[in-house]
């Protein structure tokens, strides 16, 4: 159950970036989460509503893009997506590979914010 720690880090990072947009309200936070991170989306969503309460993120949506594991297969000389994290073998040729090219991401991709128009400011 480290999702609460992870969500707290997300909230901190978003609030930090909001310093450049005073008064802005967050509508959506988009994450990229690799299959090798052991992070469960349901758990993230549950913690998110608690961690964002009373902040500029209150009421925003958390959108999680799940990324499958991609390894580089030396024998096939190409990047291949593996079907399950139960076996690090190339699905084409069956060779083992530990050359992980995708699946360890735990990133904030972007946020969608709503800004108040500054009064008297030319549009």
């Amino acid at each position, binding site marked *: *159950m*480290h999702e609460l*720690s*992870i969500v707290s*880090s*997300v909230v901190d*990072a*978003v609030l930090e*970036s909001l310093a450049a*947009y005073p008064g*802005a309200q967050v*509508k959506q936070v988009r*994450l990229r989460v690799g299959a*090798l*991170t*052991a*992070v469960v989306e349901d758990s993230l969503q549950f913690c998110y509503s608690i961690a964002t309460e009373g902040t500029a993120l209150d009421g925003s949506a958390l959108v999680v893009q799940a990324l499958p594991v991609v390894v580089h297969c030396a024998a096939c000389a190409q990047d291949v997506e593996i079907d399950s*994290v*139960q*076996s*690090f*073998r190339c699905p084409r040729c069956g060779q*083992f*590979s*530990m050359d*992980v090219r995708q699946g360890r991401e*735990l*990133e*904030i*991709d*972007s*946020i*969608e*914010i*709503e*800004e*108040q*128009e500054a009064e008297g400011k030319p549009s």
Partner: protein
Amino acid sequence: MTTRIVELRRGILKKNDELAAGLRGRFSAAGVLVLNLVSSPGTGKTEFLQRTLEELRKSGARTAALVGDLETDNDARRLATSGAPVRQINTHGICHLEAEMIGRHLEGWDLAALDYLFIENVGNLVCPSSYDLGEKIRVVLLSVTEGEDKPLKYPTLFNSADAAVITKMDIAEAVGFEREAAIRNMHEIRPGIRIFETSAKTGLGMAEWLAYLAARGT
């Protein structure tokens, strides 16, 4: 009202990763080999580490350990009987160690006077996988009583490990441990992983483990 998309593209655990990178630099400059030991609760991390510390001290190596638990300093007191400096990290409910906790608990220790620093993580096979502690080697431990399919059940942690230690081999037969299946499963999840079959009680496999440490420490 205007809606705007702001690209952040930053790691969620960036702060931990930065602190871990700083620690790694310090460890490397001090010439100390740092290992992060991870397993389920009850695998025998402390017993295995105690034996390791005792053996290393006998050979003249300078060792120290940090041990993480939610509460109590029982493990630190146990490990301290080896004669090595030991500090307990109580996480008070947090299910893993973080780089910041390591940095804070190293205060006052002269890293350059150490050959090995062992970090015994909180007993948990899920959460510690995401948190880099600045270690050079991540060791996953699995006891013969836990089931051969544990690597398949907790692939993320096994995949992130550099070495694996099977503990309590002295009771393998009694509990019907299927050695080949366990080793096969580890290799499926972490191809090429170095595996040590040990018993802290009888000393089985300790010589190979110590030789591995000596080779990595130089």
